[in-house]
């Protein structure tokens, strides 16, 4: 059963107990993203403080993968310099598009490395990226450098 590789404990934990969930004020920009095939959606807000990511808050509906990866996202980027957050974004996107051939760097992605197994299922990659794309889009809307 390959399934355990995808549904790592870390993922199921984040799914059952998502971090940072809920839409909060204040925020600088908001992004709404949808997965057109399954209807999963996320609304995500970003609050910057200088070049720091002060807060990321979100709401939405979706599968375990999309919900858990958004939860992991908040852990990885909130309170970090924007540049570092965007580096993590790049690393996560690279991991997800790697079809299981990319060795994730735990120092950069922390809990995010649990998604390495998801990368082997192309149909789920979009799920894992949903919240991340919203983050990237929201940052762009703040006028911050992307």
């Amino acid at each position, binding site marked *: 059963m390959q*399934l355990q590789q995808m549904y790592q404990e870390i993922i199921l934990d984040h799914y059952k107990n998502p971090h940072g969930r809920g839409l909060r004020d204040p925020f600088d920009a908001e992004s709404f993203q949808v997965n057109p*095939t*399954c*209807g*999963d*959606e996320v609304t995500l807000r970003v609050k910057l403080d200088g070049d720091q990511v002060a807060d990321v808050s979100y709401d939405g509906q*979706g*599968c*375990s993968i999309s919900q858990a990866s958004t939860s992991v996202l908040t852990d990885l980027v909130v309170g970090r310099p924007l540049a570092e957050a965007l580096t993590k974004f790049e690393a996560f996107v690279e991991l997800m598009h790697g079809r299981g051939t990319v060795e994730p760097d735990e120092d950069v992605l922390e809990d995010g490395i649990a998604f390495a197994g998801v990368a082997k299922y192309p149909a*789920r990659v979009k799920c894992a990226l949903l919240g991340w794309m919203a983050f990237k889009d929201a940052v762009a809307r703040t006028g911050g450098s992307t």
Partner: protein
Amino acid sequence: MTAVTAALDVDALRADFPILGRTVRDGKRLVYLDSGATAQHPVQVIEAERAFLTEHNAAVHRGAHQLAEEATDAYESARARIAAFVGATPGELVFTKNATEGINLIAYAMGNASTAGPEAARFVLGPGDEIVTTEMEHHANLVPWQQLAQRTGATLRWLGVTDDGRLDLSNLDSVVTPRTKVLAFTHQSNVLGTVNPVEPLVARAREVGALVVLDACQSVPHSVVDLRALDVDFAVFSSHKMLGPYGLGVLYGRQELLAAMPPFLTGGSMIEMVEMARSTFAPPPQRFEAGTPMTSQAVALGAAVDYLSAIGMDRVAAHEHLLTVAALDGLAEIPGIRVIGPADGHARGGAVSFVVAGIHPHDVGQVLDDQGIAVRVGHHCAWPLHRRLGVPASVRASFYLYNDLADVDAFLAGVRETKRFFGVA
């Protein structure tokens, strides 16, 4: 095994579908329950296309050489057999690339009517006119009408869906009115399985003078359908859902309507005369078949309807009914399952969609896939329907003639395993 499945001899049938013999996900037997999306292809159909391409291939309706004659004969003979399969005549059948194009063809031809000649007057739409569809449509039978409304200024209205997944006809007379120019609805829902009552809908459309467009994508592959007897004006279905190749759809239109309707796609083979400044057009069905047609695909769909006819569509329907009822009964015994759509086998086809309390459909599909069971997850191109029923997405198992009760059993076991895997009671 009951008498009906024995009668169909699924084991023998399955041998015609090489893909069913393969394994997936580390050696698991493939349980293909996604025929509602696309069906698998029997060797007879693949072989018919290969034989055409390696023995008779040429451009149809154009050449004067022997291959061109043979190719034209094969193409037109296929059209005649496919027409007969749905109770129509060859002149009433237009080949499109899929059912989606067929619906767009009608919508665009109606849009073109305003700048076409007077014989197209009955197709003209404008502000004050209404187009009626339903809340259970596939996007293919909704978005083209939204767009037509947007282009012409007509208004889009729709019939609702009841909580148990039936068309709500209680306000039929107030939704379909003398302002209605088109009534477009699905014969059989690709999500709910619901078979809609064509008769009262056609009767109301006739009363008010509306054109009836039937989406027969899920009925023609799975049951006996006589389009003439149903008395609809237009109907569409897709080859790839009925054992035929991709890239081919069928539009049926009543002869007199096709004869009066302006063209949609224009170019070669659909003209009568072409000058630099203007053109005139051929009679139907050629008028609606611009460019080089889906020649070998039509030949192959001809072989597919021969294959289905040899089995008998009544037997196909009976077989699927048996599997559907077994699946519905089995799901009813699993706690936390909500089937969306009719819960029993009455007036429904073999699409069984459901949600599992506490597990997202994507995750259900993933665990089923891991066991070799191919279902579809998502909104199945019927997003408004899912919204109406209060679910973001669903899991759909859909059956065809090559499925058997062992597939249903595997599916039910798979659903139970999914709940176990996610620790949901």
